[in-house]
């Protein structure tokens, strides 16, 4: 979802680098001719990400810098050259004015924030130079597939302390209604019990055309 506007050849900025997982998918998206510049405040984290990119063969596509983008903004050298900027910062609104300067006309900014207040503050800041400001929450629900009719719907919680005493399976005599469709297929899907209920909000915005 995040990388949907990033295509081969793009010049992309990111801050912060974090674990480098978004960086990786951005690098794969801009390959073979694009470039990703990613910045993190933490020297250690930047170094470790740099090592990872060496190991995964992405270092020709990714440059990792140590920089407090919230405080200093992005390096001036990228001014007006950038296709997309990705922010994953605690106070993204501090970096938005600089991000705006970096972007080409019609360039896209994407900011990821876990809390709605960050989204509110960022959207407020975005309104002065950006348009098409849209916020999404993206969730992924996964399903388990099990075989059988009415089987094993209980009792694999991992505790043996007494699931329902009544474990028998009873079936009413199958009627012979001529209309009836077949009762159950042998593979049935059901949502997995625990899901990641929230990771964050994605706010997209497009630089206004001047």
């Amino acid at each position, binding site marked *: 979802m995040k990388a949907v506007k990033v295509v081969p050849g793009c010049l992309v900025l990111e801050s912060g680098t974090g674990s480098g997982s978004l960086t990786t998918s951005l690098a794969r998206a801009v390959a073979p001719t694009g470039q990703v510049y990613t910045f993190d405040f933490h020297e250690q984290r930047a170094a470790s990400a740099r090592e990872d990119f060496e190991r995964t063969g992405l270092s020709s596509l990714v440059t990792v810098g140590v920089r407090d983008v919230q405080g200093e903004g992005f390096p001036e050298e990228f001014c007006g050259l950038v296709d997309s900027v990705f922010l994953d910062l605690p106070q993204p609104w501090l970096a938005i004015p600089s991000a705006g300067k970096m972007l080409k006309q019609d360039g896209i900014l994407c900011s990821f924030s876990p809390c709605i207040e960050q989204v509110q*503050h960022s959207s407020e800041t975005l309104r002065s130079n950006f348009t098409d400001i849209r916020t999404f929450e993206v969730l992924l629900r996964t399903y388990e597939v099990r075989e059988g009719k009415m089987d094993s*719907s209980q009792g694999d919680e991992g505790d043996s302390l007494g699931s329902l005493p009544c474990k028998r399976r009873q079936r009413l005599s199958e*009627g012979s209604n001529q209309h009836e*469709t077949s009762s159950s297929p042998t593979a*049935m*899907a*059901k949502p997995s019990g*625990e899901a990641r*209920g*929230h990771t964050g909000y994605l706010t997209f915005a497009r630089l206004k055309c001047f």
Partner: protein
Amino acid sequence: MSQNKLQKDSNHNPRVTWEGCSVLLDINDGDRLVFARLTAASTLKIGNKNCSLQPLIGYPFGSLFQLENGTKGPCLSRVLPATEGNYLQEKVDFQIKDESKDNRALVDNNTAQSLTGEDIDEMRRQGATGDEIVEALIANSATFEKKTSFSQEKYKLKKQKKYAPRVLLRRPSARSISEAYFKKYPARIGFLRVDSLSLLLSMANVTAHSDVLVVDMVGGILTGAVAERLGGTGYVCNTYLGLDPYPMGIVRIFNFSNEICKRIVQTPLTDLRSAQNGTSVQIGSREDICNIKSQSNEEISSSNSLPHTVSMEETALSSENGMLDLITETAASPVIRACKTTKAGEKASKETINLWKENGFSSLIIAAPDLDAWSTVKELLPLLSFSAPFAIYHQYIQPLATCMHNLQLGKMAIGLQISEPWLREYQVLPSRTHPHMQMSAFGGYILSGTRICSSDQPQLK
């Protein structure tokens, strides 16, 4: 069973605990959840300490207690609103608008705390309260001041949970019971989440004076919730296939009055289905068998006293899983227990059954993960009055889809719909509002509709 044994429950103020009442204990803000019956002899193990639950008797539900070192060992004493107020106020003050500190400069390791385990034991011996120990730990932490307010709060809460654990006294209700089960033992209630349960009741239009037919293979939570909603009017008729009623031990966790318990009956499906023209002999003979069955069932419950007798477990206080334990009084007070538990689930009387046969039930709710939806519905739908609503819960959508399709083909019902409830809980805190990171992605599916007259099916007159 005699109906007049110690019928004092109508004298209870339902907002204040009484001896013998069932309670839900919420330990350390949801870390552990324990159902218990309050008696002079019942105890609760917190950490490695056993403490009596007697001090909880006579206090309003909603009261908060804290574990302190009493003169006779650990004991629970009530946290006064004033103290609690301060405690919460601090919590709020910690939240500043836009967090300015961050964890950049902080290196956290285990050398930061200069107070040793021995020092703490010594403080305890000298009679320090849990709060005092927490304060001492903060004062002796080298890193506390450098932490963000958020981390400070987390640190303090962690220590408070360990050295001054709190117990919140909660009233068992359909909502609190199903939430507690869903959190820890969801399979025991067929993964029926509180909002799905609530939706079942409202889709089946359960209201005072309803005669509700239920198939409850979810431990009794459905039966209990319907009975709570009926409030001593109408009937919840818990029906079952075969000879043995389905266990409904959860009903006993509700503090139901005898008025309500009398409205909970169990009846084998065969009795409800026997020829509409009421051959009472047949019913009578079946009834005898079932009476014996249900009595032997009661004996089992009696010796176990609560449905799932789980031995107390030592629980790491930092546990995020939460714990649902069902504790039992060590020295039982059988009279009170009997008074609370004998009434629910008796056989329906012949007269009542005949009335149902004549008028039909006013609604049907099925929560039976082990039964095939369509074959069950096919049997039970004819027992409803015309235009009676029904609601069927299932974990899988496919059996409900098949069932819905067959009901449509057979023109047995209208207004058919499969719904899936979604429940998202939010953390709402200044500058920190978002949906919970973990959630139950799954509340199951509900097929609902209204019975109509169908030529293909056996009809009620």
